[in-house]
């Protein structure tokens, strides 16, 4: 029996900011969920199950927050699942929800991911003092910066590529009312002159710390037929994982990322991603990851990804726009960041992306990764149902 086609008919997110002191965690997730239901013109009674994701519990210090959020998400008396795959969780949460629809377990599923970073300190959460280990590491930037240097050496990319990405993404964010950073006076010169935090990563090439939530309504063919606005159709979705550290691990272009993309392309019948995909919303917490992921996802040959960035191909008006929303570089509620990527891909193929809409976007890839480049999740969504 073939799978049920899965459609995205509702999308909602909060205006992402550094600190939402006016709402509880429940109030925050509620806001995104209400907006997704309104977009789909559905009520709580129309939802069969809720699938929620967030990053490690240490990031807010609430153990199993999904239990206390059942009321806020209308999940009482319904199945509620939590997904947990570090930074990629927003993506894998959406895929778990999609699989429930594809398998005909449920007709309509609400999926949601969130983070309220202001209630904790992620740098603390990522640098816990483990006995007998030499304390050395300074947060995620210190972890990823050596891999960026390895990419620069391997590809011969000019030093300025990271700043070009950051400048582009922050400019895109100005067109997205939900983005956290709206740096109206940003210039490339300012990015290039920003201080080195973890050389070769500059301050302006790093993501902010945000409070925010993102929600989507996923439904079957019957649900899509009743939807008030054009749906986004799931054409392919996959997850892959690998150990954080192992002999032979390629941190610049992890095998799990390549395998995940290949699985998505196979499902969707994509022969040449560079030709067949119109835009990409990818998880780029440090700007150099744009060229790195362009190669890992098959949009460029190894060592060539930076050329797409440098020549403007990845700009909003380029041939392959990347991170139209402003990306993780402009908005980073960690647990939600993956789902915001997936939601942006869906907004684009629905023609609902507003000022950052890519004209004629028919097939768009959403991508997330997490942990020490050990979890990958991706989906390809289209404006037409699968097989059409």
């Amino acid at each position, binding site marked *: 029996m073939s799978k049920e086609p899965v459609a995205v008919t509702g999308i909602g997110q909060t205006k992402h900011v550094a600190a939402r002191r006016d709402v509880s965690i429940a*109030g925050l997730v509620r806001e995104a969920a209400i907006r997704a239901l309104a977009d789909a013109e559905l009520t709580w009674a129309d939802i069969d199950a809720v699938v929620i994701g967030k990053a490690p519990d*240490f990031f*807010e*210090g609430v153990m199993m927050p999904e239990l206390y959020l059942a009321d806020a998400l209308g999940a*009482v008396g319904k199945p509620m699942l939590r997904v947990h795959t570090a930074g990629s969780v927003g993506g894998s949460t959406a895929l778990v929800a999609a699989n429930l629809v594809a398998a005909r377990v449920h007709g309509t599923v609400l999926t949601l991911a969130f983070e309220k970073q202001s209630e904790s300190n992620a740098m603390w959460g990522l640098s816990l003092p483990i006995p007998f280990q030499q*304390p050395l590491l300074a947060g995620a930037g210190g972890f990823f*910066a050596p891999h960026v240097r390895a990419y620069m*050496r391997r590809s011969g990319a000019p030093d300025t590529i990271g700043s070009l990405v950051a400048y582009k993404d922050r400019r895109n964010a100005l067109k997205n009312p939900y983005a956290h950073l709206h740096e109206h006076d940003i210039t490339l010169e300012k990015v290039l002159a920003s201080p080195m935090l973890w050389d070769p990563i500059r301050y302006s090439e790093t993501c902010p710390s945000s409070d925010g939530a993102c929600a989507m309504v996923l439904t079957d063919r019957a649900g899509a037929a009743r939807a008030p606005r054009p749906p986004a159709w799931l054409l392919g979705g996959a997850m892959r994982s690998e*150990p954080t550290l192992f002999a032979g691990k390629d941190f610049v272009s992890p095998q799990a990322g390549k395998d995940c993309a290949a699985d998505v392309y196979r499902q969707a019948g994509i022969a040449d991603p560079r030709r067949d995909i119109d835009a990409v919303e990818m998880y780029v917490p440090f700007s150099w990851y744009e060229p790195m992921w362009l190669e890992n996802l098959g949009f460029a040959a190894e060592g060539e990804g930076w050329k797409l960035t440098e020549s403007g191909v990845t700009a909003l008006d380029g041939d392959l726009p990347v991170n139209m929303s402003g990306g993780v570089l402009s908005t980073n509620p960690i647990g939600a960041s993956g789902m915001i990527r997936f939601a942006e891909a869906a907004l684009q193929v629905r023609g609902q992306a507003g000022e950052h809409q890519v004209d004629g976007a028919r097939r768009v890839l959403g991508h997330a990764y997490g942990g020490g480049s050990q979890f990958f999740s991706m989906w390809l969504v289209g404006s037409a149902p699968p097989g059409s």
Partner: protein
Amino acid sequence: MPEVLSAPLVLEFPFTRSLGPVQSAFLTGLRERVVLGVRTTDGRVLVPPVEYDPVTAEEIHDLVEVAPTGTVTTWAWNHAPRRGQPLATPFAWVLVRLDGADTALLHALDAPGPDAVRTGMRVRVRWAEERTGAITDIACFEPHDGEPAQPGDSTGAFADPLRGIVAPARLDYTYSPGRAQTAYIGALSARRIVGERCPSCRKVYVPPRGACPTCGLATAEQVEVGPRGTVTTFCIVNIKAKNLDIEVPYVYAHIALDGADLALHARIGGIPYDRVRMGLRVEPVWTEGARYPDHYRPTSEPDADYETYKELL
């Protein structure tokens, strides 16, 4: 086999909570000796109050005051109170349905022993002398023989309402690094760097984890590596981390020790930070009494050729 190491690991953090309208009123009320519930769509009063109706999922904010007296609906005796619990002497954990409420609140009951506690017994709030807007503003409950108290008529509007609280969390672990790391740490005290080889893929892991993450097999064969190695990649850290006592800038490097199949991470010293480069040959610098090499410094060897370490990046 030497004894496996273990040590206490305490994780604590002062998490902050933005309260939202309902919890703000509830906790501010406690500060003012008022217990508030919320009325649901079907007319029940939930204490403690919630922001969303558990039945209809609608947003609810009709706050009503309930009495400081109530009835125990169930209980459990706590014969050995732990750090941070409401009372230092043995007490009963109780669920109390306050007069005027339809649901029960979890708290502590001060009682001489389990024989003095029963389901259905009447209790009243004992307020803390100093109240800040926290559940601990109710110091505990105590037995109550009198009439039910009459609730006031607060609807949750207070001067100077509380918007947020600090919720300190603390986790106490006994951490053990396990057999393989214990052996590794033991060898370091003799200034030897000893990894373990996978019996299947033959890769040498330093530090060893006791199993090969690729093959899933336990490792046992010990292999001394280094002490010299090659800087495969690095970053220059310019921002000081809160819990890290290292002067910035410093170089955080991945070092492939000679004979190891995976780079380990260490600091580079003995060379200006802006002269560190990929391929630099380094050796450990030991300090008296330290568990680890303090840092690695350049040897006098020429740099390693990129081809010799690019697979270890």
